[in-house]
């Protein structure tokens, strides 16, 4: 009996400690795994402001691009910081992903109307005061019929030079001005297209 007592105590003590640890999640204490970018992510409520809408389009666009490239969204983002590890077709995948993102938000009626975004856009713009007053006086219904959000954003995505944007990743101000320019160009072209007979 004496010879088996100590091994028995040892086995019981080990079983007790390991049992408690496994019950407390000992085997699962690992970093969170990246979500499958091809599975549609739940979209939180979108406030009708420029930055959250733009951010959501970018996040969904990253998912779409990552899905096309067969990698996780996070891996794609980390590759953006180190262009050498970026797939050669990443620029095209990003552009397609952004288009898909606009399509999904449009399909799910999550895009705000342009008239809802105009006051904030005017406030942040460096347009002359008189122009701001004139634009502000345009009725919302006119703005929304002339500039529907989804076509405007699709056109803006088309205007974006993704490779140039990737080169400017270290400078958020330059990215912002490039996006602003693309949206303005898209808005102008959209209006001109609609005014053409």
């Amino acid at each position: 009996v004496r010879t088996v007592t100590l091994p028995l105590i040892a086995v019981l003590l080990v079983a007790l400690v390991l049992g408690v640890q496994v019950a407390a999640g000992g085997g699962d204490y690992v970093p969170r795994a990246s979500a499958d970018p091809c599975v549609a992510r739940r979209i939180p409520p979108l406030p009708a402001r420029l930055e959250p809408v733009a951010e959501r389009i970018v996040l969904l666009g990253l998912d779409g691009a990552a899905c096309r490239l067969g990698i996780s969204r996070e891996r794609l983002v980390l590759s953006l910081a180190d262009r050498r590890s970026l797939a050669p077709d990443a620029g095209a995948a990003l552009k397609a992903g952004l288009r898909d993102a606009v399509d999904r938000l449009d399909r799910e009626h999550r895009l705000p109307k342009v008239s809802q975004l105009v006051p904030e856009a005017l406030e942040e713009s460096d347009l002359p005061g008189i122009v701001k007053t004139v634009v502000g006086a345009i009725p919302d219904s006119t703005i929304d019929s002339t500039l529907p959000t989804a076509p405007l954003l699709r056109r803006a995505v088309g205007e974006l030079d993704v490779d140039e944007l990737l080169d400017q990743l270290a400078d958020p101000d330059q990215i912002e001005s490039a996006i602003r320019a693309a949206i303005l160009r898209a808005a102008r072209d959209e209006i001109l297209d609609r005014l053409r007979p």
Partner: protein
Amino acid sequence: VRQSRTGVIATLSLTVAVVLGDSGIVTLALPEMLRDFGAEVGQVAWVLIAFNLVLALVAVPAARACLRGDPAMATAGGVAAFAAATIVCAVAPSLAVLVAARAAQAVGGALVIVGSLELLVEATGAEREGVRRWAAAGVAGAALGPVLGGLLTSAFSWRSIFVVQIPVVLVALPAAMAMRGRVVRRAEELDVSPDRPYVLANVALALLSAALTAALFLLVLLIVEGWRRSPAVAAVAVTAVPVAALAAGPLFRRVRGGTRSEAFAGSVLIAGGLTGLALLPGAALAWTVAPQLLVGLGLGLSVDSLTAAALRDRIPRALHGGWTIAARHAGVVAGLAILTPIFTADLRHAERPAKEAVASLVLDAPLPASAKLELADGLGRQLVAERGRVPDVRPAFAAVRLPAPQAAAAATLEHDLEDQLRRAATRAFRTAFLVAAALALLALVPAVALREGRS
């Protein structure tokens, strides 16, 4: 006479503990040495490896040298050499000098350890009692070394580890000299060829030492490098091992299970404790306590029992004592050689999932895009600055100024990022701990084949 014998026994036991404690005493000082000398991790690891490797290589030759003369003189010579080398360690101007001095420390230390075995048996007047004290001192030293090293490094500097040892060891000089001419060799020790070393007990000792290296070395690295806790906190946290090791004897020896039973139970406890460290459910220090207690109980139960078995009825005693020291420290070196590449490779591989988890949290955080970009930039810079170590995310957050509601979200994000990094680091050590547990389980093979003997 009795009182002076008590003093001699205490002094020699303390010296054996200090010398064997040197095996792992620098573990917690390695990061500071790394910074001081501007060296690579692989180079600084030699401060640890050199001592154990040389001790493994010279323990048996030192025992043979000890047998040719008076063990008291061998011990005194060893103390002098160890103290001189320790002084050089304390003032070492370069890593090369420190590594060389550590090797010299091991040469002196080998003489101290094998000589002290003979002197302790003589001073206690009973072979079994002398061997028991010698083995127990070794276990206490090995278990307490990293703790004391960590506390001294935190309170002063890594150099203080060596400064403190010098007077403690020098006290053994008069104790050894007092034993001059007292060890009388038995006729059979002088005339008969030496017994063959007890291979099973020594192999079990080597395997358990390799596993125990993991328990202390890996756990300390996990706490300091992985969880970014201070060496002082790590030192306090790993006290559970020596406490349990010292408690194992009084707790379990009453059972009188015998050498095989104690070695078997000890191996199971060490393997179980290491598996527990591989399956931590969180990065709270409290989670490491129970596995450490298992490791400590296993250490206290098996190592001195196996040492006693390796020495029992074998002559000459000093030579077999030398074999146990050689086996233990060869085990430490083998443990480092096997486990270091495993966990360094796993740490490298952990980098990507950790970065992806961090990227995922930052992307989905309820913060403005501009704040996220700023944070990502800061985190990237921090990652580069830490050169592959687990990064400290706090400077990146401190650099971003946010209004109150967003500051709360940023604080939550900071907490979540730290959690993800701790998860990645903890996961990176899992394989190494499991391999170490396997080494302890391997010790069961020689343990079950041991000849029985009551301890």
